[in-house]
Each structure stands twice: as C-alpha cells, then as structure tokens.
C-alpha cells in the first residue's frame, strides 16, 4: 500500500518507494540519503502542522510536511533488520 511519508503515524517504519517532483528539493533529499529502498521511521511530529522528525541511516532529519508529501512510501521489508537508532 502506497502512502505519503507525511501520513505516517509517530513510531511507524516505512520504506521509501520514490520521490515525486524534481529539482533542488529532490536532489537535496537524495543527498541526505532518502533514496528508493531506504527504510525510515517517523520519530515525532511537531504540533500545529510543523515539521516531522524522521530517523534513517542512524541519524535524525527534520522535514517540513510539504516536503514529506513528495515522498511516497510503502510497508517496510520484514527481512530488513538494520534499524539503527540515531547517534546524531
């Protein structure tokens, strides 16, 4: 089932399927490690529609809701075990 990253609940894991749109924002996301196949967790939502904090590849990243709406995710792979907690 495909969903937007912004629709995930706190504590949910998902796998990045693709990033819609192009240009600088997409490039920046790729440079931060958000590439198809990567698994990430929504750690918390800021109140009043503020940014959300995600965890991937052992680090934290904060993203605006609007940016998350461009990231399409699916259920995580049950085989995938590399769920590191962030150290930064």
């Amino acid at each position, binding site marked *: 089932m495909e969903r937007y990253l912004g629709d995930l609940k706190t504590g949910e894991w998902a796998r990045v399927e693709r*990033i819609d749109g*192009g240009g*600088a924002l*997409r*490039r*920046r996301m*790729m*440079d*931060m*490690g958000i*590439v*198809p*196949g*990567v698994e990430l967790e929504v750690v*918390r*939502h800021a*109140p009043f529609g503020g940014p959300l904090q995600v965890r991937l*590849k*052992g*680090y934290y990243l904060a993203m605006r809701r609007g940016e998350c709406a461009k990231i399409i995710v699916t259920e995580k792979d049950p085989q995938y075990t590399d*769920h*590191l*907690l*962030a*150290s*930064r």
Partner: protein
Amino acid sequence: MKIALIGNPNVGKSTIFNALTGSNQQVGNWAGKTVERKSGVLQRANQTIELIDLPGTYSLTAYSQEEIITREYILRERPDVVMAMVDASNIERNLYLVLQILELVPRIVIGLNMMDLAHSAGISIESSKLASALKVPVVEIVAAKGKGIEEFLSEAIRVGSMASDPLPVEVSYPADLEQKIQAMELLLVDTPWVTTYPLRWLAIKCLERDPEIGQKWSISSTKLPVNKTVNSCCNNGDPVSYELQEVAELPGESLLAKYEEDGWTQDHFEMAIADAKYRYISSILPQFRKHENPNKPTLTDRLDSWILSPFWGYPIMLVILALVFWMSFIASAPLGGAVSLGMAWVADIVVGLLQWGQAPEFVQSLVRDGIFAGVGAVLAFVPQIAIFFAFFHLCRIAVI
C-alpha cells in the same frame, strides 16, 4: 601548498582550522556570495601552507550556495590535497560526500572526527579498515580536545607532496548504469577536457547534465599579501573572483537524447547515481563499523522523549522559562542591591579622603554623584545581565 578542509556542516572543520591557523587568518566573503571565506597561512617543515575552511556541504552538486562554493573552489582553484572531515557518529551520510570528492580529486586524507560521540553511542570504527576499504589514509581525531590534529595535517602534507596521484577506490555502479558511464567516457576520452577533469567524473556529470561542464573559467586574484593578519571588521573581502571565459559544446548530446528516450532522464540519472553511492557505502560499512546495542537510546533520545513530548513539552518549557526569569530578575535582586551598597560604601571612603585632602566641592560632587552614583546605577544591573547571559549561553550550547 594549498590545503582545503571539506565536510558536512558541524563536523568540526572550523575547530581544526582555528587550532591550526590560530590568529593568522584572513576573513572575507566568497565573491558575490554571503558566505564567509576563511583562509590562513601556516608553516610546517619549510613549507608554506595555505589552509582554507570551506563552507559545510552535504554534496558537490550545484544546488545551494555552499555546495557551489565548495565545488567551484575544488574545480577552479585546485587544492593540492583535501582534508575531508567525517563525523564518525554519522558515517554513512558523511561518506557520501567523501565518495563525491574522491571522484574529483585523488589526493585526500580522511579525518575521522567525533570519535568521542561515536564511542558513547556504542559505535566503533576501525580506521585502518576504513582506510583500506577506500584506499585513502584515515586519521582519528577529536577536534574539540585537540587530539590528532597535527597528525591529520602531516598526513595531508605527505599526500600533497607525493610524486604521483594515489589510486583510491572507484564506486562500483550497477551494470546498466556502468555501461552508460563507459559509453560516455568513450566519447570524452579524446577531448581536451580530460586534461582538466578526471574522465569518470566528467562522464557522470555529463549524464547528470551538470551546468559546470564545458565552462572555462579564469581566476582573478587580488590577493592581499600573505602573513598579514587582517581585521575581519575592516577587510575588503573577496580575495578571489572567477570570470567565465567561454562555454564549449561537449560531445554526447545525441547519446543523452537516446538515453532520454529509454527513460534515462536527467532526474533518473541523478537518482541512480546517488542511490548507487549509498548502496556502495552500505556494502562496505560492515568492514569497519560495529554498532553495539544499536537499539539502546542515547542520553539525547531519553531527554528528547520528555522535552519534545507533545504533552510534557509545554510544562517543561514553561518551568525552564520561569526559572530563567526568576533567576535573572528576582534572585539577582539582592546581588544588585549588594553592588549598590558596596558602591555607596566605597564612594563614602573616597569622598572622605577627598574631604580630608580638602579637594574643592565640585570635585567631591563629581566623584560622589557623577562617577559613583552614575556608574553604580549601571553596575547594579550587572548580576541580572550576567545571570541571563549565562542561561542564554547554556541554551545555545545545549542546542549543539
């Protein structure tokens, strides 16, 4: 010798830069940009070294000011060796930048910083294994404590003065992408561009339709004399600026058009290349990184779960603000009173001395009402301000 410090934001570049250059720094701006340009001169083993502190960046593409400055510096000013700073506690994302630098310049040394943070997060990195995985020298450092900085520099000088370029690893791309890179390489191999850029990097950038490719630049340098410490407030800045000489057409347009028909658009190439680099990092990671108890929350995690909780966050914030307010305005009041009393007491003694010395009345008045009463009124605020700034500073470093 020209050495450049490169790395993600907040990896400790400026800490190293300041430790190495001390007060011998030139601060200006990058031509036409609002980003600070910091360079410094140092002397090691009869060599004059120009060290430059580049702005922090995650990538070497052309999308933000910091990225553009960093890659323009490497491409146009050509440092002899790059000191690549890596955050050991966040090594995957940091190595992504290192791989990009490696495609562009073979002479690099990795400084593995934040070893203390990595250690407390249960991460151990074997720097010798990392070095052999990338075929690049690696020096462990804790910049904040001054550990390993000289070793990092001397390793950089050694690599910078090598007679021939070292051969670091090449990222292995998936077969379909690799074949397209090689087809592009074939078209470029006989052009004069390969004398200025590494062939593989040039081919990849052509596939990504990077605007830099094909441009010829000249550098006009209005350099201030070296060794002169310039006051940052009054510096005229912009010591170096670039001028576009010509834009050349590169071969490969028809090849790119053919790929685009097959769905390999610019976006597709960018994604595939970024993806391949991250996959490559994941594949070599187990060789040098061990993560003990990866599911054990760190101190920051545990604090965050309270301070950033949707429920407890607000009361905790109010309590902290109330505490700062109380300490600065109410708890500091007796201290301010004590300062006033102390000033009045000293004023009495000084005026007593003046009377004893039969100083004229206007001098006594000046000292009593002007100097002591005036300055005392200001000094009475010092405890309040000091306490407030102490908290302010605490909040600032807590953020980092």
